């Protein structure tokens, strides 16, 4: 279990700046789920990432349009078929420095080239970080600018078994050029970020009576002149108690989730960690902590060993096997099916959770987009990168399989921004934005 290392991080993990510290316990500002915000519909976006490409014939529906059959890897979406949108023919056209996996993840949400740098991939020239911001952060910044859409965190970056290593392969989200954001892959750390303050408040409240009692004792042994100062102090303690009491119940619209304790961060626990992270994400949407989230499984070239599926070898290693190795292709299809199950589980949990202060479920107001750094593992192609969407957050027309003719993925990124109410005309490399956002609604 890793902890935030500096006190600055501790303070920022409370979700407020150091300048606002004296107000840390000002509870009514904790969850911003106020009445005014409820008046307009909340829209949310989740980007989910899994690595190493997919197996096309076990993934893409043969048909186009509303009548289509889900193949093996996408079968878990069956219950949400009418709320799903499968986009074939979207290509990552960004080139430049870095190998396919580096560009795959580094340009996926940024739509722009990597900086030249010192990180050598398996081929091509060495590269550094992305030269631009990622679309989720762009949207988050837009939402945070406006009082009506501002939330405590704006966005939350979840991970599952992301290696403890900062390099081009492990970072998908960028706050700006050369500013990668590390996902939080420890559910307990994420829990601390989301609810630590509430826990602290509970602990604090529990000792205030004893503190008052002791204060009285101390007061009785000082001079009458000095007693005035301690009386003043006692008043502050009383006020703190009242503030904590007043905040009680107002701060959250739901109970603090109970996490199974002691789950270590290791390969075999990936399914459990995944569930915990999804649970925390659903809860943070219910509390309106954020409107944008990312969920990154492992990393680009990630090597999860899915023993729980009977797959012993690492994912990346398997993904290099040729199409002719049918056994491995089956295993790869199964691996992607497992990732799809995670998406389906997230969709299910969102569908089960009513929209607080609104109508319908969280899923009605949330779009999940599952994607990958490559189209296909053994060819490292950036063409036909999988983009599978579920949910009604962005008002796209769902229940379809759609096949584009090699469109740049920058246009899809623009569609996401437009769907979230941020009407930008260019994103990432402008060369690939010329025809505007893809029409999806």
């Amino acid at each position, binding site marked *: 279990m*890793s*902890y935030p*290392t*500096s*006190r*600055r991080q*501790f*303070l920022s993990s409370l979700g407020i700046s*150091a*300048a606002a*510290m*004296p*107000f*840390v*316990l000002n509870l009514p500002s904790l969850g911003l789920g106020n009445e005014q915000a409820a008046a307009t519909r909340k829209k949310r976006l989740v980007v989910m990432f899994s690595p190493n490409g997919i197996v096309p014939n076990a993934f893409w529906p043969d048909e186009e349009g509303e009548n289509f059959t889900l193949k093996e890897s996408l079968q878990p979406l069956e219950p949400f078929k009418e709320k799903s949108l499968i986009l074939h023919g979207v290509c990552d056209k960004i080139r430049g420095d870095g*190998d396919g996996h580096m560009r795959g993840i580094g340009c996926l949400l940024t739509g722009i080239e*990597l*900086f*030249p*740098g*010192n*990180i*050598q*991939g*398996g081929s091509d020239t*060495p590269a*550094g*970080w992305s*030269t631009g911001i990622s679309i989720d952060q762009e949207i988050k910044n837009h939402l945070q600018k406006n009082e009506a859409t501002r939330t405590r965190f704006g966005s939350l970056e979840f991970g599952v078994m992301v290696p403890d*290593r*900062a*390099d*081009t392969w492990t970072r998908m989200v960028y706050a700006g*050029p*050369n500013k990668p954001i590390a996902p939080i892959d420890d559910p307990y750390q994420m829990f601390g970020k989301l609810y630590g303050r509430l*826990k*602290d408040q509970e*602990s*604090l409240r*529990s*000792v205030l009576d*004893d*503190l008052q*009692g*002791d204060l009285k004792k*101390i007061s009785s*042994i*000082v*001079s009458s*002149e*000095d007693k005035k*100062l*301690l009386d*003043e*102090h006692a008043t*502050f*303690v009383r*006020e*703190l108690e009242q503030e904590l009491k007043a905040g009680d119940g107002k701060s959250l619209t739901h109970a603090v989730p109970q996490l199974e304790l*002691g789950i270590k961060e290791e390969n075999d626990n990936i399914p459990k960690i995944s569930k915990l992270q999804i649970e925390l994400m659903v809860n943070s949407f219910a509390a309106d902590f954020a409107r944008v989230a990312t969920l990154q499984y492992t990393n680009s070239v990630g090597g999860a060993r899915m023993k729980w599926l009977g797959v012993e070898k690492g994912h990346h290693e398997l993904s290099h096997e040729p199409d002719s190795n049918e056994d491995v292709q089956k295993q790869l299809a199964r691996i992607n099916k497992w990732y799809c199950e995670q998406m389906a589980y997230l969709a299910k949990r969102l569908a089960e959770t009513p929209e607080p202060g609104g109508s319908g479920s969280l899923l009605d107001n949330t779009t999940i987009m599952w994607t990958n750094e490559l189209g296909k593992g053994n060819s490292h192609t950036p063409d036909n990168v999988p983009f599978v969407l579920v949910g009604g957050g962005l008002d796209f027309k769902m229940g379809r399989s759609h096949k584009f003719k090699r469109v740049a993925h920058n246009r899809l990124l623009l569609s996401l921004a437009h769907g979230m109410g941020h009407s930008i005309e260019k994103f990432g490399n402008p060369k690939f934005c010329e025809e505007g956002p893809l029409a999806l609604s």
Partner: protein
Amino acid sequence: MKLAQFHLTLAAAWLLATSSAIAAERTGEQIYRELCVTCHGMAGEGTKDQPKVLAGDLSIEQLTKVIDKTMPEGEPEKCVGEDAKRVAAYIHETFYSPIAQARIKPARVELSRLTVRQYQNVMTDLIGSFRPPSGWEEPGGLHGEYYKGRRTRGGDRAIDRIDPVVQFDFGEASPEPEKMEAHEFSIRWEGSVFAPESGVYEFVVKTEHATRLWVNSNARSEADQPLIDKWVKSGNDSEYRGSIRLLGGRVYPLKLEFSKAKQGVDDSKNQKKPPPARKASIALEWKTPSHAQELIPARCLSRRGAPEVYVCETHFPPDDRSIGYERGSSISKAWDQATTVGALEAASFFLEHLRELANVRVDEQDAGPRLREFCYKLAERAFRRPLSPEQRRLFVDRQFELAGELELAMKRVLLFIFKSPRFLYREVGTPQPDAFDVASRISFGLWDSAPDEELLGAAAAGQLSTREQVSAQVHRMLPDLRTRAKLGGFFLQLLKIDQVPDIAKDSAAFPEFSPEVASDLRTSLEMTLDDVVWSGRSDFRELLLGESIYLNGRLAKLYGTDLIEDSTFQKMTLDDGKRAGVITHPYLLSAFAYTSTSSPIHRGVFVSRSLLGRTLRPPPEAVAPLAPDLHAGLTTRERVLLQTKAQACQTCHAMINPIGFSLENFDAIGRYREQEKDKPVDASGSYLTRTGETVQFSGPAELARFLANSPEVHNATVERLFHYLIKQPIRAYGPDTLRRLRDSFTKKEFNIQELTADIVTEEAMAGKK
């Protein structure tokens, strides 16, 4: 040393001539009641129309003069001559003088919370007490290890040496061609860095290659994030910055890594051609809170490692300094909220570092009892005294029983301790001060922090009961870095430069006076202060008389002496002995000056207030200085005389100006000059002492000699240092304390360290009635 010439005059003599027969019949009190009381009140407390309290430090003679010329307001002719003298004597004796003030309003030692500085130190030392001890040894550079290959590990080490500073330009070559190749090598510098002052430091690494810098982190695990992480080289940036808050006077671990190589996949075996030649350089710089960006100097780097230091990030409202020193005798809502946030911050830190600090993991078999033991110890160190059985129950046992879960129990205990007045205030533990209060008085007096283990041990063993025992502990603790940090702060405050003054100068008049020069001057002054205080003699007079000054290449060039351009700081003599001590240091002379001209007023006010300890009221109305170009023919001295010649100004300027004039040999950047505007500089000046003697001096050296030997300066210094160290009014310790300390200061050859020890010992013993 030559004695200054003292010209004594009987200031009151001329007044006798104007005395009137009738007035001679009336006492000062009668006159006061008749003419003054309606405005000033019965005891000078003031009235609605004239709310200023009639109190100050003018001598009877000076007071007489003011009354004679200006009082009663509008009709000064009603009280002149002998009448004025009698009234002056009466009010001086009854309520005006500091002694009279002390008599009518007895001071007392007030209950005080920890000041912000004390809170920060106490937290740091409390957590530090569970870590290995720290020290500052072998300054002079970092341990550098140079490796063949891209990684700084394994048996590829080719060079092992001490690098005084990190500033290398290897060009396209290898650091040592016989030992390592040019195209691929890596270096690790390790050791510690000394932070001279508190605040936010910006560390800067300049290199075209991969680099990582850790400050105040021993990087034991991956979770210990570097301050600067540019192991991924991305784009063309070659200067990286990271900011971190550090407490002054403490030592922090530092590690810098550099790699001239590609990272990621190692493809070197597949490369057929030799890699292209590339340049490599690296420099480690910093921007401390009060200096311009500079190379981290060797004197602040050591090859020795250091434990991490807890630095509180919580922002506290600043302490009350309205009476000249920080004190904790008042509280506010904002302060209380800050203590809550500070408690949460520290509690989280303890829980995150439980393994390191308590050597216990919550999931261990016997974690419960061991954590309780840890909590008892923690509470004792936090409260700076042993716990009673009831307190052990209340603060620890009860919380463990109520919380159930261990982690929760720890959190409750920690929050309870850090919110407790026993932690946040001084001397609330017992009805009467005991040995543990004595221990705290010593440590807070010297360090602004809690007692260390040894001092608490002495208290527990009853070895703090005699003056000798206390003095022995004080002398043991005196050389500690924390004393140095605290005393360093005192002199910056004394010289009015604790807040960095804005000393930008007119670039047309002084093109060479850059921010870097100003920063170097500050360093030079700080080194001088450190030298004086921590040299063997620690002689206060040396501060005012010392003839040498620290200069580096840049300063030497500007102030007209010979030194190689990139020389580091060294002691030199400037201007042939025409300088003496800190009042002639160019940093102070520049700070107390305008952008293009000197300012005798600022310099005079500084000497009067800070050194002579005089009280000067702000000018009756805001006055803009006369613009030099409106009086193009006048020297600065003439211009100042012209502007302040009005009677209302002279009350104070009669003291200020003649002192400031004696420093007129120095221009706006503190360079020596013989002439101004083609006229010879008139640097003659004078001072009317509190006892009524007029002292005359000409030029800086005579002024410095007067000040160094002036009982007024000694008195003011003792009083100021007492207040700075103890944060309570000296008068609360009895009417003789100041005199006794001053006598001892004089007897001990004005030894600053001994004065510090005396003050702290005096206060520590004060409660032992």
